[in-house]
């Protein structure tokens, strides 16, 4: 299943809906890289609330998304990491640098606003 990417003002929001295969993760990476350029986005929010496993491959792909976006002037924030997934990542010793993280979508957008100094569609 492919991940829907919504445009909201200066930001892109990708909400992962279910467990992803490796090829779906790579497709998300490529789709986001394309859209950041097409829409001149300043930030990306990736919602992983529905993701039940973040292993080394997923972590690396998310890092690549963030590093690629950064080269094009956009910040990436990961929201919705489930508590059990967070424990697994710590025990695994996986890192997500240079991704920003936030609790939920609202906090994620707030974090992007702070780090990009951008305004969203409501002009806030």
């Amino acid at each position, binding site marked *: 299943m492919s991940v829907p990417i919504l445009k909201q003002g200066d930001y892109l929001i990708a909400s992962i809906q279910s*467990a*992803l*295969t*490796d*090829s779906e993760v790579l497709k998300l990476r490529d789709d986001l890289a394309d859209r950041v350029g097409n829409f001149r986005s300043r930030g990306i929010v990736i919602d992983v609330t529905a993701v*039940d*496993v*973040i*292993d*080394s*491959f997923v972590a*690396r792909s998310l890092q690549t998304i963030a590093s690629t976006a950064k080269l094009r002037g956009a910040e990436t924030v990961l929201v919705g990491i*489930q*508590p*059990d*997934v967070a*424990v*697994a990542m710590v*025990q*695994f*010793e*996986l890192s997500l640098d240079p991704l920003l993280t936030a609790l939920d979508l609202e906090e994620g957008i707030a974090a992007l606003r702070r780090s990009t100094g951008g305004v969203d569609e409501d002009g806030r």
Partner: protein
Amino acid sequence: MADERRVPIVSDDDMVTARAEGRALAAHLGFSRTDATLVATAISEIARNIVVHAHDGEIVLTPVYGDSRYGLVVVARDRGPGIPDVEAAMQDGYGSSNGLGLGLPGARRLMDELHVESEVGRGTTVTMKKWRDRDELERLRERRSDSR
């Protein structure tokens, strides 16, 4: 009682199936949601190693019903190229091809036990275990329902 489950591993879809089966067995054995996630994450790494390094293989999930503890055993088998230096492969950062070499050492940290048997040219078998201690109350309840 659940018996062993066999998941053939050929493509990345199968990795998702193996993860889900591991999670289901963990839940059946009374593991916490967090422990089930640790197991699913380790299965994901080991299944990917089969697809990436050995092309295909299988994962077998087996429950262990002890009196004082329950266990979940994951055996991942393939007839791929094998690992020349298993001890080195267990270290962080010993990755070949595209990997960073995080999979095996990460899976070891997620599980209670991880053992690799490998022969060059013949294949690799990774055996991983996770245990859950059963307390006195749980055993008492079981004895009561048995005697009924």
